[in-house]
C-alpha cells in the first residue's frame, strides 16, 4: 500500500473528543469484570505456594462438599494431546505434574458466590513434594542449577549449556576484533535488569459459557480476542469458530493481555458446571501469575574513534522468561544496536528458564533491556572521548538505505530527525541544578502489520459504521474514525467505530506490535475506498454515465471529466437513502497482512536529581521526541509517548520483582510493587516528528512501543552524571544509588 502524498488533511491531525470519552468518565464503559449473566457462578483458582514442586495428589472432596460449590477442574479437564507452544500454554494455565512457580495454577473452583469460591479454593487439598528452585537468570545457567524441565531446549542450543538454556541465537557480520583494534576507546560493561510488570490497572477478568456440545461464548478483557479464541479452543479441544469471543473495554494491557491465563479455566468450569462462570484475578494473582517481562543479564562492548565513529560492537544477552521458553532474546539481540551503522557487530542471545511465571509481551518486548546496556556504553564512550552525545549519535545514526545491525536495509526512518529535534530543543541546553544529571538515549521498535480484517457499512442516513477487530487500548477508535472520515469526506462525528466480536470478522491479530493504527487503519482506508467505489457506481447508474466519469469528493459523487454531463452532486446521504432500491446495502471490506509497517525511532532527554544522602532519584524534566510518520490524532500519539516514558521511569527507578530465598514473590501488591504516581513524574513534554511511512496511505507509523525503549538508558545516564558513578543495574533504587555514591558498587 503506497503513500498517497496527500498533505491537505481535513480531519487527520485534529484532536476531536474520543467516541468513548464520556462513557469512561461516567463509569458506563464496561470492562472485563463488569459483565453478569443469569445464573452465573463465580470462579476461584487454587495456586501453588511453592516455587517448584511435584504435585503428589489433589483432593477436592472437602471443597466439593461445601454448600454452593458446583465444580472443580484440574489438568484432567483440559486437552490431553497438546504439543509445542500449545502444551506450554496449557502447562502455564494449569499445572500438570509439577508446579513451576509461586502462584502457578493447580485447580479451578466454581461456586454460587465469589466468597464461597475463595473459601472452597482454600479447601482443595494439594500435596506437594517440594523441589529445589532457581529464580535468577545467571544462577539458572550455572552448573548444578536445578533443572526445570529436561528436553525443553530446541535445536538452536549448542552442546554443553545447562538444560535451562532453551534457545540460543548468534549472529553478526564483519570483524569485531579488527574493529575494536581500530577504536580509540573501547568500553565493556555488564548490566542487569529486574523483571517488571506491565501494571495495567484492570486485573484479568472474564465471563465464560461453554456447553458440552463444544459451543461457547466468552467475554474478556484482551488485546486480541482471535488469539484468545485460538488458544482457548486448543486448550479445551474445541473448534475455533464454535467459540465466540467478545472483547470488553480493556483497562490497559501493554502486551500483557495478548495471551490467556484464566479464560480457559473459566471455560472448563462452565463446561463442567453447565453454568456461566465469571473469573476475576486479584492484584496479587496478577503480579504472581500473569506474564511479567523478562529480566536480563547482559555484557556489551563497543569501540569508538576520537571523532565519534563506532568501529565495532558486541553484545551478549541472557534473558529469563520464566518457566517456559519464550524470553524475548530475539528482539533484544535484533534491536540492541539498531540505532547505529556498524560494519563489525556480533550478537549472542540466551533464553533461560527459571521458576517464575511465563513472561508475556511488555511494550517493545526485549528492546528496553538491550537499549539500556548499549546506550549506556555509548554514553560512556562519549564521556570518555569528550563528545556531545547527540553529535556522536548523528555520526552513527541509521537512515534510509543503511544496512541494519540485524541485516535488512532500512526504508525511510526518522532517527536523524529526532536527534536533530532533540539538539534544537530548549531542554537540551537548559542549565542543570546541583546534584542533577542529564541523560540522552535513542531507541527503536520495528512495529508490525499482522492479520487484519475490517468491515465498513454505510447507514441508510449516510453515516458510517466501521467494524474493527483490534481492541481500542489508547484511542484507536478515534483514529480509525478520523481515517474513515478523511477518506470518505464526511464529518468525524458521522463515523462510528466498533470493536466487534470474533463472529463478525475474519481473523485479527491483537492490538500489539504497535500495529492497530497502522494495520486496522490501512484496512479501514481500503474498506472506505471500496465503499466509495460502490457509491460512485450507484451515482453513475442513476446518471446513466460511466463510473469512470464519477469523482468522489467531500462526501459526495460529482460528475467529472468533459463527457460526464451536468448533474447535481449526489451526497452520501442521498445515495444511501436510496440504496435499498438501487442494489442493496453499500459496504466496504478489506483483509490483509500488510507488510509496509514502518519502524519508529525516538530520542529522549531527561534530567534526574539525586539526593546524595538517601540515594533517592527524582525526574525533574523529561522530553520525548519520536517519529510518528503521520500523527492521526496527535493527543493519542502524545499519550503513547508519555505513557511509554512513564513506564520506563518506573522500570528504571523503582519497579522490580523481588523473589525471596524461598522462591516466593515478596512484593505482590501495589504498595510494594511501586508504579509511579503523579508526584513521581514531571509533566512529560513531547515532540512529534513526522517522517512519513511509505507503506501506509497517510504515512502512519506505529507509536505505542518505541517510547519505553530510551527511558531506561536515558535515566541511567542522567543518574550516572549526577553521581559520577556509572549505573549498570536496574532499578536504581535509593539503596543501590547510595551504595554507588559511596563507591561501594552498584549490585
Amino acid at each position, binding site marked *: 500500500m503506497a503513500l498517497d502524498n496527500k498533505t491537505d488533511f481535513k480531519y487527520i491531525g485534529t484532536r476531536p473528543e474520543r467516541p468513548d470519552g464520556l462513557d469512561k*468518565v461516567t463509569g458506563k464503559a464496561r470492562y472485563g469484570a463488569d459483565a453478569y449473566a443469569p445464573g452465573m457462578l463465580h470462579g476461584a483458582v487454587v495456586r501453588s505456594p511453592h516455587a517448584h514442586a511435584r504435585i503428589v495428589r489433589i483432593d477436592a472432596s472437602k471443597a466439593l462438599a461445601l454448600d454452593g460449590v458446583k465444580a472443580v477442574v484440574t489438568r484432567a479437564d483440559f486437552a490431553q494431546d497438546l504439543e509445542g507452544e500449545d502444551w506450554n500454554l496449557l502447562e502455564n494455565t494449569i499445572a500438570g505434574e509439577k508446579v513451576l512457580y509461586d502462584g502457578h495454577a493447580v485447580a479451578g473452583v466454581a461456586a454460587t458466590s465469589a*466468597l464461597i469460591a475463595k473459601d472452597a479454593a482454600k479447601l482443595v487439598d494439594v500435596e506437594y513434594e517440594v523441589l529445589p528452585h532457581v529464580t535468577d537468570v545467571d544462577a539458572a545457567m550455572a552448573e548444578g542449577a536445578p533443572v526445570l524441565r529436561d528436553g525443553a531446549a530446541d535445536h538452536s542450543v549448542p552442546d554443553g549449556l545447562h538444560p535451562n538454556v532453551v534457545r540460543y541465537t548468534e549472529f553478526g557480520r564483519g570483524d569485531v576484533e579488527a574493529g575494536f583494534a581500530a577504536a580509540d576507546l573501547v568500553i565493556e560493561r555488564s548490566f542487569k535488569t529486574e523483571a517488571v510488570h506491565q501494571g495495567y490497572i484492570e486485573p484479568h477478568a472474564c465471563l465464560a459459557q461453554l456447553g458440552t456440545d463444544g459451543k461457547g461464548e466468552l467475554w474478556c478483557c484482551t488485546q486480541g480476542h482471535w488469539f484468545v479464541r485460538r488458544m482457548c479452543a486448543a486448550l479445551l479441544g474445541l473448534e475455533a469458530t464454535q467459540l465466540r469471543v467478545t472483547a470488553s473495554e480493556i483497562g490497559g494491557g501493554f502486551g500483557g493481555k495478548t495471551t490467556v491465563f484464566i479464560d480457559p479455566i473459566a471455560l472448563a468450569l462452565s463446561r463442567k458446571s453447565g453454568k456461566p462462570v465469571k473469573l476475576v484475578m486479584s492484584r496479587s494473582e496478577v503480579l504472581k501469575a500473569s506474564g511479567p517481562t523478562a529480566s536480563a543479564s547482559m555484557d556489551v562492548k563497543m569501540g569508538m574513534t576520537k571523532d565519534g565513529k563506532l568501529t565495532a560492537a558486541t553484545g551478549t544477552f541472557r534473558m529469563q522468561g520464566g518457566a517456559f521458553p519464550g524470553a524475548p532474546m530475539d528482539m533484544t539481540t535484533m534491536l540492541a544496536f539498531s540505532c547505529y551503522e556498524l560494519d563489525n557487530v556480533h550478537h549472542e542471545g540466551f533464553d533461560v528458564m527459571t521458576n517464575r511465571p511465563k513472561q508475556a509481551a511488555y511494550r517493545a518486548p526485549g528492546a528496553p533491556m538491550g537499549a539500556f546496556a548499549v546506550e549506556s556504553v555509548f554514553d560512556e564512550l562519549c564521556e570518555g572521548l569528550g563528545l556531545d552525545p547527540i553529535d556522536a549519535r548523528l555520526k552513527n545514526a541509521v537512515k534510509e538505505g543503511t544496512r541494519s545491525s540485524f541485516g535488512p536495509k532500512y526504508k525511510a526512518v526518522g532517527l536523524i530527525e529526532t536527534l536533530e529535534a532533540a539538539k534544537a530543543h530548549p531542554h537540551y541546553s537548559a542549565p542543570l541544578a546541583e546534584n542533577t544529571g542529564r541523560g540522552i538515549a535513542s531507541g527503536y521498535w520495528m512495529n508490525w502489520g499482522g492479520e487484519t480484517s475490517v468491515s465498513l457499512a454505510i447507514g441508510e442516513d449516510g453515516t458510517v459504521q466501521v467494524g474493527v477487530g483490534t481492541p481500542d487500548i489508547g484511542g484507536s477508535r478515534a483514529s480509525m474514525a478520523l481515517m474513515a472520515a478523511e477518506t470518505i469526506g464526511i464529518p468525524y462525528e458521522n463515523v462510528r467505530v466498533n470493536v466487534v466480536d470474533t463472529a463478525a470478522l475474519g481473523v485479527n491479530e491483537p492490538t500489539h506490535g504497535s500495529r492497530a493504527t497502522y494495520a486496522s487503519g490501512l484496512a479501514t482506508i481500503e474498506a472506505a475506498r471500496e465503499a466509495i467505489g460502490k457509491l460512485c457506481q450507484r451515482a453513475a447508474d442513476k446518471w446513466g454515465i460511466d463510473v469512470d466519469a464519477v469523482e468522489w469528493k467531500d462526501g459526495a459523487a460529482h460528475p467529472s471529466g468533459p463527457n460526464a454531463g451536468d448533474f447535481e452532486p449526489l451526497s452520501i446521504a442521498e445515495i444511501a437513502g436510496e440504496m435499498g432500491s438501487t442494489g442493496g446495502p453499500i459496504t466496504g471490506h478489506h483483509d490483509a497482512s500488510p507488510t509496509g509497517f514502518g519502524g519508529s525511532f525516538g530520542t529522549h532527554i531527561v534530567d534526574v536529581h539525586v539526593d546524595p544522602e538517601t540515594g533517592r532519584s527524582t525526574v525533574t524534566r523529561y522530553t520525548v521526541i519520536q517519529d510518528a510518520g503521520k500523527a492521526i490524532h496527535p493527543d493519542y500519539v502524545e499519550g503513547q509517548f508519555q505513557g511509554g516514558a512513564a513506564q520506563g521511569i518506573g522500570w528504571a527507578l523503582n519497579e522490580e520483582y523481588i523473589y525471596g530465598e524461598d522462591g516466593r514473590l515478596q512484593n505482590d501488591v501495589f504498595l510494594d510493587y511501586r508504579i509511579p504516581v503523579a508526584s513521581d513524574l514531571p509533566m512529560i513534554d513531547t515532540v512529534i516528528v513526522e517522517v512519513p511511512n511509505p507503506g501506509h496511505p497517510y504515512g502512519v507509523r506505529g507509536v505505542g512501543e518505541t517510547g519505553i525503549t530510551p527511558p531506561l538508558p536515558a535515566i541511567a545516564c542522567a543518574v550516572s552524571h549526577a553521581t559520577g558513578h556509572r549505573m549498570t543495574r536496574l532499578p536504581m533504587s535509593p539503596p543501590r544509588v547510595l551504595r554507588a555514591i559511596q563507591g561501594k558498587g552498584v549490585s
Partner: protein
Amino acid sequence: MIKSRLSCLPENNNPAPLLRRIEAAHFGTDRVRRRDFLMDISFRLNGELVSLTDVDPTRSVLDFLREDKGLTGTKEGCNEGDCGACSALVGDAGGVRAQNTCLMMLGHLDGRALVTVEGLAAPDGTPHPVQQALVDHHGSQCGFCTPGFAVTLAAGHLSSDHDIKTLLGGNLCRCTGYAPILRAAEAAATETSPPHLKDALEAPRPDASKEAGPACPGAVDALATLYADHPEATLIGGATEVALDVNKALKDLPFPIFLGQVREFDKIEITEDKITFGAGASIETLRRIMAGHHPGFAEMLTRFGSAQVRAAGTIGGNVANGSPIAETPPPLIALGAELHLRHRDARRNLPLEQYYVAYGQQDRRDGEFIEAVSIPRQKDRLRSYKIARRFDQDICTVLGAFNIHVNVGKVLSARIAFGGMAGVVKRAEAVERALIGRPWTRETVAAALDAFETDFAPISDLRAGADYRREVARNLLLRYWHEDQGTPVAVMGVTP
C-alpha cells in the same frame, strides 16, 4: 451475649432485637459468611436513601456497590487501597472526602452519604466539570482508572484543593503519565460545582439522643464497657488495615466495633500546655492541626498513604497497631507525646515510647483502648524525614524524627525517634545522650553518629538492606543539623 440494639440510626424504629447469632447468613446476591453480628444500616447513595437490614457490617462497600447495586463504574484494581480506582465521595459531619470503597465496610456507611462516579453527573446527564475536562483534555487512555480520578478530582474540586499532585497520590494511572489528567484538573478548577452534589452528600444524621448499639457505640463510656466486656472484639476505625484481613485474608471478624459514631472520639483540644487528639481523629485532621504547630510533621503527613487513606485512617489506629514502620509514632515520640489509655473507667497515661514493648507486643491490657493522644506545647524544633522509594503512598523504609532544642549554643534537650530501624518505633537514646549538654556543632553531631550503632541493629528486607538503613539514619541527623544551620544543601558523599 449482648442484647442491645445495633442500629445507630433514629429512623430505624424496629423494636425487634437486631442483634442475632446465626450459623450462616445469606445476604446480597453474593455472600455466605459465618457471623455473629448483623446490622441494620441507613445511608444516602447517589442522593437516594438506602436502608439495609441484617447485613454483615464488615462487607466491603465496593463489593456491595458492584454486586448488589450494579454500580460497576466503581472499579476494583487492587482491593487494598493502593490504586484508587474504587474511590467514592463520602459525606458526613466532618465534611466531604474521597475514600477507597474497598477499605470501607458497610458499617462505616451508617448515617453517611456516598456518591459514586455514577452520581457525579447532574440528574439531567450534564457531566461534572471534572468529567468534562477529563474528556476535553484526553485524560483517559484505557479509562479503567478514570472513574477513580473523576471522583478524587471532584472531591478536590469541592474543597478547592489546588495541590492536585498530592490530591492524586492515591490514584494510579498506568497509561497517561498523568499530564493530561493534571491539565484537566486545572481546567475544571474555575468551574462551579454542580448543585445536586451538595444534597447528595448531605448525611442523614443519627439522633444523638438515642442509645446507640454495640457494633456502633455512640459514646466513649459505652465503648469502654463494651470493649472491657468483650476484649475479643475488633475495634474498627478507618479500617485501612483490618479491611485487608477481611477482604484478602478472608478472615471473619467475630465481633466488630465501629468507632465512627462515638461522639467526641475525634475531638481536638488545644490548651496552653498541650494539644490533645481524640483517638478517632483522622490523619488528615492531625495534618491540618499540625500545620500550625509543627509544619515539618504536617509536611511529612502529606506523604502518609494517600488523600483517601489519610481521610479514613485515625491517629488512634496508627499508634495502637504497633507497626515498626507506622508514620505518626516517630514524630509523636520526638515531641514527647503521651497516650491516654482507658479500661472501663480506669484511665492511665503513658509516654508513647513505653507503649511499644517489642515487635507485636504493646503495653495494653485486654479490653483497654487508646482514648486520646496528647502532645506538649513547645517551640517548633521538629523535623520528620520519611525515606521511601516513592514520594506518595509508599511504606517508609526509614522514618527519622528529630526534636533538638538548643540554648546559647548548647544542646538543651534531644528527642530522636526512628521507625524502620528496629522491631518497634524506638528512641535513639544513645545518640540523644551524645548530643545533650554539648555544643550544637558539626563536630558534636559527627561524634554522635556512631551512637546509632548502640541504638539500632536494623534488619534487611525487601525495601532496603540493614547497611542502607544505618547509613540513612546517620545522614538524616546530619541533614537536620545542616537544615538548622540554614544550609539545607545536600552533602554529596557525606563523610562525618
